[in-house]
């Protein structure tokens, strides 16, 4: 049972994004390499490399995900999105070989989330991307679960380093479960503690008084 006093909105599952989820909002800031397919008149000031008034057709730019999703249309008149290199053929074979070795945090902290969002852009490799994401997750999950359930009261930064943010959430959940269970075994469950919300409120009031 969650002992938090508020329920944050979780990130969306699969190809959806949750509107109010902070994780999804941060995810949508990731940049994607893309190519414009038509002229954007008078928006030249966004493109620092050229000095023209408009953005010409065929310019290569890096657009954030929220902009790319908004501008993308099936008939591809506006922008065309290229896959970032972590989702392409080369890296997919690496993941196939051994998913546990790769540092997913370096590949963009939202590897699974961004991968799921890439499926919106109708690339011909969509089924392979989806399969690769799934298999990578399945391959890495066992180690994450194992380490989260058996690392009690120690420094976990070495374990958490190479995980992407979805896996880190799972790791945190596992740790919370382990800590609550150990607390129950020690009899801490009957010990009343002040809620985190109350403590923070009291601290804030004290700093207000002192200021």
């Amino acid at each position, binding site marked *: 049972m969650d002992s938090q006093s508020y*329920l944050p*909105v*979780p990130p969306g*599952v699969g190809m*959806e994004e949750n*509107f*109010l*989820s902070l994780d999804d909002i941060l995810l949508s800031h990731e940049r994607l390499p893309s190519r414009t397919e038509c002229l954007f008149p008078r928006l030249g000031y966004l493109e620092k490399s050229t000095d023209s008034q408009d953005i010409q057709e065929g310019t290569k730019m890096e657009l954030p995900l929220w902009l790319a999703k908004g501008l993308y249309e099936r008939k591809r008149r506006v922008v065309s999105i290229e896959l970032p290199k972590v989702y392409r053929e080369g890296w997919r074979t690496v993941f196939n070989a051994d998913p546990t070795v790769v540092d997913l945090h370096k590949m963009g902290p939202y590897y699974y989330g961004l991968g799921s969002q890439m499926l919106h852009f109708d690339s011909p490799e969509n089924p392979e991307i989806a399969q690769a994401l799934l298999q990578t997750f399945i391959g890495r999950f066992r180690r994450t679960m194992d380490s989260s359930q058996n690392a009690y009261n120690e420094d976990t930064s070495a374990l958490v380093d190479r995980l992407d943010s979805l896996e880190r959430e799972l790791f945190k959940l596992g740790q919370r479960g382990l800590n609550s269970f150990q607390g129950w075994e020690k009899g801490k469950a009957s010990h009343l503690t002040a809620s985190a919300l109350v403590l923070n409120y009291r601290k804030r009031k004290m700093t207000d008084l002192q200021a």
Partner: protein
Amino acid sequence: MSDALSEDGSEQNDSQEELMTPVELIAKLEEAWLNEKFSPDLLENKSEIVECVMEQLTHMEDNLQRVSKGDMKASVHRMEIDRIRFVLSSYLRSRLQKIEKFFPHVLEKEKSRADGDPSYLSPEEYAFAREYLANTETYLKAVALRHMPPNLQAVDMMKAVPEPCLDSFVFLRVKEQQDNIMVEPETDDQREYVVDLDVGSQHLMRYRTIAPLVSTGAVQLI
């Protein structure tokens, strides 16, 4: 279950037509509690059970006042009262949590149900959900939407708040024999197939497949 105190409980409850012993009542409460805890969606409102249990609790407390102090049985009965009270409040708490999580969908479901169907929300829960919606909208407006350009100042709550995920897997135990339950394929290679559920067997399935069975009481979530 307490024997000395249960005699008052087995009299006919006014709010129901049939006779129900306190044992059955508590068993039903526990069933409703477990179902509510493990289901991803808000289940039907069991206000009759809640009311009966409240009556029972007040009854038992009155009886305890009359019993002599220092009696060993009194402390055991008191523990039992505390346990029942915990189950009841845990049940109500998980319902409130689900209402807070899915408030626009819950209100939509309540609006669109036919007049004869049992309601999903008790009157108090309905008022709570309405207030929560109004408060969230006021908050978003005051904090952010006020400063946006005029044509972007509306937020569609139904799309903004995620829907309950009916495809989550749940453990269940079968109480009544069910035949011919259609199970959807998981991967592209499988086809949909049919399972028979035998009494007393336990399964792990998607919630969507067995949702109607939970509301009729044919399966119990564990």
